[in-house]
């Protein structure tokens, strides 16, 4: 099996996949959940419940506003304790719905399963996906129905099923592919029906040979699907890089999207959720989250309800093993450090990585020595060193001309920089400033 790696740059950090052999464990529904009204890219939801209301699992608690928006649902049954500002993974209090459990964990009966889902027209399928609140589960949380509705001017010929899971430490998708492979494949078939494509490529990094074999076995009778093993390289699982590796097509600079080159990428977790939403009318109320890092006693892959506070997950893994340095929501490359364990799990929480204090890097930034490591490592083919200097000198016009808006914030430049310059933060600063100035104009 040829191991593919076509994109330029990238890094190979230590994989640290020590939770890859832990089967998915169900985390009991907590006594209290906080469901944020903004867990996705796009407009936040409007709360459709008020304190005192009774809800059951699967009831809608937040209504989507606008096209690029999805609903949010209750992940436990109980009573609405409050609707207001609560801690959020983004680091500031945001509107959310607090639900207190009634201990019954009862499903709502407002759901309509479809046994013959492959007979439904694509529009109906997309509508279900939107209603059930499905978003990209790889971490970005982009509304899936929007991704599956490219405009007619952009014809699509391939669906890429993203099982790369290139971030170190994370193993949620790996376990999903081993334990829920059929769901993923059915979800892929649904997505391919919606898009009208007859080619689907399942992309898996070669450090997951058992998943590769499992998938290959299941798709023997499905000619439209194929499995491709990828060389282990971060960020293999990033959309643009994946498309380059699998199809050898380059998504254009300056705001290009995968649909511009005829491809759509979907995470395996998203596809499994799509299948469950369409077949069983299951709204997105739970996900697999890897709780790992040397800072927890027993790393595990947990099936958690959306809205569970982080501390419940840490407790389920035996608690902290030593003095805590960082608690990262997501992977160590692109995740967001948290300062409170009250923060709830949201739809995009693929993992929680706990770094003990002893592992946190000390030291501050040194001057750039022009070594060029960052330029070699950048998978988006940018020059982080130059962009970093532009950001420091507030030269945003020049930064824009050097394509800073195409930065995918993967963190490769930060990782390789021997001077420990905070490049990702500088580039994010430049991007934020440029967007602010665009809006003001």
């Amino acid at each position, binding site marked *: 099996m040829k191991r593919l790696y076509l994109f330029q740059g990238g890094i190979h950090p230590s994989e640290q996949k020590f939770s890859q052999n832990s089967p998915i464990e169900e985390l009991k529904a907590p006594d209290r959940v906080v469901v944020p009204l903004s867990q996705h890219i796009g407009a936040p939801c409007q709360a459709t419940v008020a304190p005192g209301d009774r809800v059951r699992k699967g009831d809608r608690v937040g209504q989507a506003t606008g096209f690029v928006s999805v609903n949010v649902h209750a992940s436990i049954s109980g009573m609405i304790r409050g609707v207001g500002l609560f801690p959020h993974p*983004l*680091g500031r209090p945001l509107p959310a719905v607090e639900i207190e459990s009634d201990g019954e964990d009862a499903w709502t009966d407002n759901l309509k399963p479809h046994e013959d889902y492959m007979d439904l027209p694509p529009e109906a399928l997309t509508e279900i996906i939107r209603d059930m609140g499905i978003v990209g589960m790889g971490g970005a949380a982009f509304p899936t129905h929007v991704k599956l509705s490219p405009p007619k001017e952009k014809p699509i010929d391939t669906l890429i099923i993203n099982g790369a899971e290139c971030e170190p430490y994370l193993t949620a998708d790996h376990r999903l592919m081993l334990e829920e492979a059929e769901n993923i494949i059915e979800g892929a078939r649904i997505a391919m029906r919606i898009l009208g494509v007859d080619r689907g490529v399942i992309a898996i990094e070669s450090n997951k040979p058992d998943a590769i074999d499992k998938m290959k076995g299941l798709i023997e009778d499905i000619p439209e699907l194929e499995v491709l093993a990828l060389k282990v390289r971060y960020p293999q699982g990033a959309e643009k890089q994946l498309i380059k590796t699998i199809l050898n097509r380059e998504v254009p600079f300056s705001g290009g999207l995968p649909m511009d080159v005829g491809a759509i990428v979907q995470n395996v977790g998203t596809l499994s959720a799509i299948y469950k939403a369409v077949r069983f009318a299951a709204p997105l109320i739970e996900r697999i989250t890897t709780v790992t890092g040397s800072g927890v006693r027993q790393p595990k892959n947990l099936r958690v309800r959306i809205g569970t506070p982080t501390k419940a997950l840490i407790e389920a893994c035996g608690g902290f093993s030593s003095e805590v340095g960082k608690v990262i929501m997501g992977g160590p490359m692109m995740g967001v450090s948290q*300062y409170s364990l009250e923060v709830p799990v949201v739809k995009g929480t693929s993992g929680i990585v706990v770094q003990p204090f002893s592992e946190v890097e000390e030291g501050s930034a040194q001057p750039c020595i022009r070594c060029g490591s960052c330029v070699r490592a950048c998978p988006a083919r940018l020059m982080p060193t130059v962009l970093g200097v532009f950001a420091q000198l507030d030269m945003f016009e020049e930064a824009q001309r050097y394509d800073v808006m195409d930065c995918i914030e993967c963190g490769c430049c930060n990782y390789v920089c021997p001077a420990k310059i905070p490049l990702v*933060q500088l580039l994010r600063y430049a991007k*934020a400033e440029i967007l602010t100035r665009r809006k003001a104009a």
Partner: protein
Amino acid sequence: MWIALFCLSGLGLVASLGLGLAAKRFAVEVDPRVEEVERVLPGVNDGGCGYPSCSQFARAVVEGKAPVNGCVAGGEDTALALAEVMGVEAVIGEKRVAVVLCKGGREESKTKFTYRGVENCKAAVLVSGGDKACPYGCLGLGTCKRVCPFDAVVISEDGLAVIDTQRCTGCGICVKECPKGIIQLVPIGKRVSILCQSGEKGSEVRKKCDVGCIACETCVRVCPFDAIFMEGNLAVLDHERCQVCGLCIPRCPTHTIEARDGPFPPVEIMADKCSGCGICSMICPVSAIEGDKKEVHRVLEGRCVGCLLCIDRCPKDAIGIEVPINSAVELASR
């Protein structure tokens, strides 16, 4: 010699004819006043007038699109000079200076986490809103200092941005660039400011900062000119109404209110003019004047807050005060 003269003159004539024709052919309309205006302007290109460069502002003034007092950094002198060039009357507004509405430094306020990253407030704000526990607090990483064209910002040892009112010209760039939006422009004579912008409940503020406004509303009650009102959980000062008496300052339990540019000097009663009527002692809101009827009154040490009500009311003009220049201007206009 004649040949030389002839040749040279001939060449000169040819050249001038050529240039004259060219001048007609390539004529460009330029108002000479633009150059005059440009010469008067400070030439800093700070953008306070709203135009990206001094030359563009100059053009706008001559075209009538910008007012002659549009150059904030240049101040009164520039406005008057521009008015002369344009042949119009200049309207001088009161000079304004910038004030950072936060006094919670590293000592007084708490942080949410240890921040290690770019030393720039705008970049730090991208990381969970900055490391300060209070979301309205000054991060002290110096974005305002960097953008100030007049070098008027100092970052104190306590990690707070402080504006040097001597250098500040009120151009307003720091106000725009502060990512927390906590810098305000106030008239230079209005020396009192409430140094907090926290909209959080008092109990929350107490947990995060020793000197934040806890919405106890004491200042609102104390102000004799009704110049303070509550906006949600924050006390706000109306500078139009504020008479800079300074009464609110000692009454604030968290010491959130401060006066810029020095304390208030005490008043002095001139013994040779005082008739002992006692009006000053009656109206003094802090009971800082005492004396018997028909006897010369005196000001008690350390009590006077400089509200100057007694000066207003003394029928014998027997009370005086040593004031710094700014306050004198302000007094004169009262």
